[in-house]
């Protein structure tokens, strides 16, 4: 079971080579195939996630949640997806057409590109990049631009305000996010995600870097624009922030990308702090799915438990609390590494 997918990949490659394809083309085809499969799985998974989120919010608010279509309302999101697909695609006449139209597409493209480096099991990353973690962070920083494009292109004051807020928030929280990951990188001595997983053979990094995990978790919530940090959407004051003017499939793309990002960030947390695919009995790819889902459940729990935070509190929390704490964490980690090295460990 452990090597199920890697074996399938190997068999496919050798089959293509035996057909007379040069090995480089076989690798390329396999790469595209893996990529497509991941994108399809991640996208279909969003249907489950939306249903889960509505059920959990219902549970926390003592409601039933969706309960009409299918067992426990399980088909509700499928019906919603059908509705969104068939809705009219409205482009406001005063909108900046091209920017308005490309923003959601770029957003989802960046979201699925994050999966290229995530090890979804032992030896199961699409690209084994040497600087994988850094790739994740820098690609993630590009998604701010998409929100900005959406807010600007809509030519609507709520959209622009929402975009401004989200950009201010995401830029501020990118810094503690990157800093909190530095502690892990220092311990593992590598930016390669599969090497970081191997470095956790003895201890999971959550035990050695609890502060880093907390800062990562908080900063990631803000990066995802999820509650209690969902200021950019803030329905009561900004209608829907940057998404106000979007309808039908374009709006659904934003929604899809947000959940795709949620899965990616949770999978990264599982990889960096919870030993990735390591675990007893079950194969590694199953372990990472379980861990990712557990972390996502905590994200949802947080969202529906805490009230939204005021914008200025949010910003000062990042600059005055999270950044100093994550800097201190780097210092202490460095001192600790030198100390234990001096002790001869």
């Amino acid at each position: 079971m452990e090597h199920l997918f890697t074996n399938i990949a190997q068999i496919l490659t050798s089959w293509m080579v035996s057909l007379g394809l040069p090995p480089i083309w076989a690798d390329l085809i396999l790469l595209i195939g893996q990529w497509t499969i991941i994108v399809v799985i991640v996208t279909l998974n969003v249907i489950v996630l939306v249903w889960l989120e509505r059920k959990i919010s219902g549970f926390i608010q003592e409601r039933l949640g969706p309960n009409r279509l299918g067992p426990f309302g399980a088909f509700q999101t499928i019906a919603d997806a059908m509705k969104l697909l068939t809705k009219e695609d409205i482009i406001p006449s005063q909108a900046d057409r091209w920017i308005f139209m490309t923003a959601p597409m770029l957003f989802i493209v960046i979201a699925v590109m994050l999966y290229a480096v995530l090890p979804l099991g032992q030896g199961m990353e699409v690209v084994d990049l040497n600087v994988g973690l850094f790739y994740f962070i820098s690609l993630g920083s590009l998604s701010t631009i998409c929100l900005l494009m959406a807010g600007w292109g809509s030519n609507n004051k709520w959209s622009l305000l929402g975009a401004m807020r989200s950009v201010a928030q995401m830029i501020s929280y990118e810094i503690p996010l990157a800093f909190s990951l530095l502690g892990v990188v220092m311990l593992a001595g590598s930016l390669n995600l599969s090497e970081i997983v191997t470095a956790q053979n003895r201890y999971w990094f959550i035990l050695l870097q609890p502060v880093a995990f907390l800062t990562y978790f908080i900063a990631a919530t803000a990066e995802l624009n999820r509650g209690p940090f969902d200021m950019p959407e803030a329905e009561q004051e900004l209608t829907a922030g940057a998404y106000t003017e979007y309808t039908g499939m374009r709006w659904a793309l934003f929604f899809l990308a947000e959940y795709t990002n949620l899965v990616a960030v949770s999978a990264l947390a599982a990889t960096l702090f919870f030993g990735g695919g390591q675990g007893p009995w079950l194969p590694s790819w199953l372990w990472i799915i379980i861990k990712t889902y557990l972390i996502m459940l905590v994200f949802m729990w947080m969202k529906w438990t805490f009230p939204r935070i005021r914008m200025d509190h949010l910003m000062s929390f990042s600059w005055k609390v999270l950044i100093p704490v994550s800097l201190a964490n780097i210092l202490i980690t460095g001192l600790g590494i030198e100390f234990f090295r001096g002790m001869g460990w």
Partner: protein
Amino acid sequence: MSLMIINDLVFVLIASITLLSALGMVLSRNIVHSALALILTFIGVAALFFNLGAAFLGLVQILVYAGAISVLIIFAIMLVMHGEAHKTNRFNPSLGTHLWGGYIAAVMTIGLVAAIWFSELPEVKGRTVEDAVGLLAGLLLGNYVIAFEAAAVLLLLAVVGAIILARGVEEQ
């Protein structure tokens, strides 16, 4: 088709996208469109770094320039903008500014070409750097630490200056 030809084709593709978006930045009448074209140029330069095997530098280019600096540029543009967007990046009609602009551009181009032409660039064909991040860190925090710290202080000064400009100095 050999690997070299594919590599060359990829280079030509990336380079043309980069150049076209740079042209788009200069020629667009809408300053927000210019800023977005600038981001595309930055990403194109990052892709060139990737093509040369310098993944780390490419990612720094994306994180710092495309992800942070250009967002700040757009932010500043949106905050100070008034009037209609498609008239924000107009061309200056006077001949004098054209001449000055052309002169400065020519001097910069000649300077750059001369700098590249006359400096000895060691050839590293076929050699891949395994631990590029570690080597870079060693250089930045070892040999060139003073320059590195000086740049950091300079940036700090810029931040303080920006805060003073934005909030004004309180009269005693």
